[in-house]
């Protein structure tokens, strides 16, 4: 049984979201101090969160 190929949105959706969040975090922390240091770190940390989720949920 062959599986149907995934579309570009399914392939690149999550990586593109993580890319955008990380970039916002990197630039946001540069533009403002204080709270934005934490928001920036949280947004950049989304990449590691996605990694941890994938290893936990998608390991088979």
């Amino acid at each position, binding site marked *: 049984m062959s599986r149907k190929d995934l579309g570009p949105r399914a392939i690149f959706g999550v990586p593109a979201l993580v890319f*955008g969040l990380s970039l916002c975090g990197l630039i946001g922390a540069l533009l403002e101090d204080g709270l934005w240091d934490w928001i920036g770190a949280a947004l950049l940390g989304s990449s590691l969160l996605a990694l941890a989720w994938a290893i936990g949920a998608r390991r088979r």
Partner: protein
Amino acid sequence: MQTRTIRAWTWVHKWSSLISTIFLLMLCVTGLPLVFTHEIDEVLLHQQWEPARSDGEKLNLDQVLEMALSRHPGDVAVFMSFDEDRPVVNVTSIDPGGPAGAYNFQPIDQTSGEPAPPVAGHPAMEFLLQLHTDMFLGLPGMLFLGLMGLLLVAALVSGVVLYAPFMRRLPFGTVRASKAARTRWLDYHNLLGAVTLAWVLVVGLTGVVNTLATPIIAYWKDTALAELTAAYDIPVAAGERASLDAAVKRAQAALPGMKLQFVAFPGSTYSTDHHYAVFFHGDTPLTTHLTTPALIDARTGELAAVASVPWYVKTLSLSQPLHFGDYGGLPLKILWALLDLATIVILISGLYLWLAKPKKKP
């Protein structure tokens, strides 16, 4: 995607990665402790120092300069910088008749004129920084590492293109742990590459820009700053110069609200033969990395110009924090270190995938 297209991108990904991997690994390994330079130096260097007169009046900059040069007769001043958290002025001078690049660096207590201990990094950290910056090869080493950075960008772009055909039947993040080791590591390689792409791209590109610092500054001096010196003919001799202290005050008046960073003396790298270049920076996370020089005519002490910083110098200034990750406090530094570790895994897994590739039968 056609097979021929995939093959072409695979070729780009393989060779851009293979050529640069060993150098990128060196950069990642040396970069890891460098992220925490400030913290490591604080632990390794227990420097306790107090100014001679913490409440006393400070010496003016002309007095500090005179004291510094009196300790190295024959030297000419090159730079003067200012510590942010202690009343110390750092004077860099050089003997014009001596060997090139043999600078004398003197931190001076501005309350007494006595020498203060230099705020130098730990020798181990200095070694790592030099290795990371130019591999002890100077400008050629920097430019070579810049080239490796460009290969990294090529590897990232080709990796994104190849991600689609590899993942066309696998949901995001799939790791086929029960399959052969090579399949498992291919999945980890793709997953790590996908989630760290933005960070690796930003750190890689800003690293490339940083390797161009010397030519960028040289170009700025030869073009934008040269226009400001067109009206002058003979360089100003040291004895003909106006008061440095007055020059800095004049510059501060022209740029109110900005913080004094350093002064480049006439004839030095960051100035012209005719000006004190007084550099200021802002006090927000963004503007603290953007410097603005005010040029003071060294003969008359008058403000000659507030030089606008061209886009390529601004790009260089902003590339430094985005490469070092030192602008968002400890949380950002910890993330920088974790993402650096993830990049090391990507590099090693890429190498493994190439070595473990099944050999074609003849």
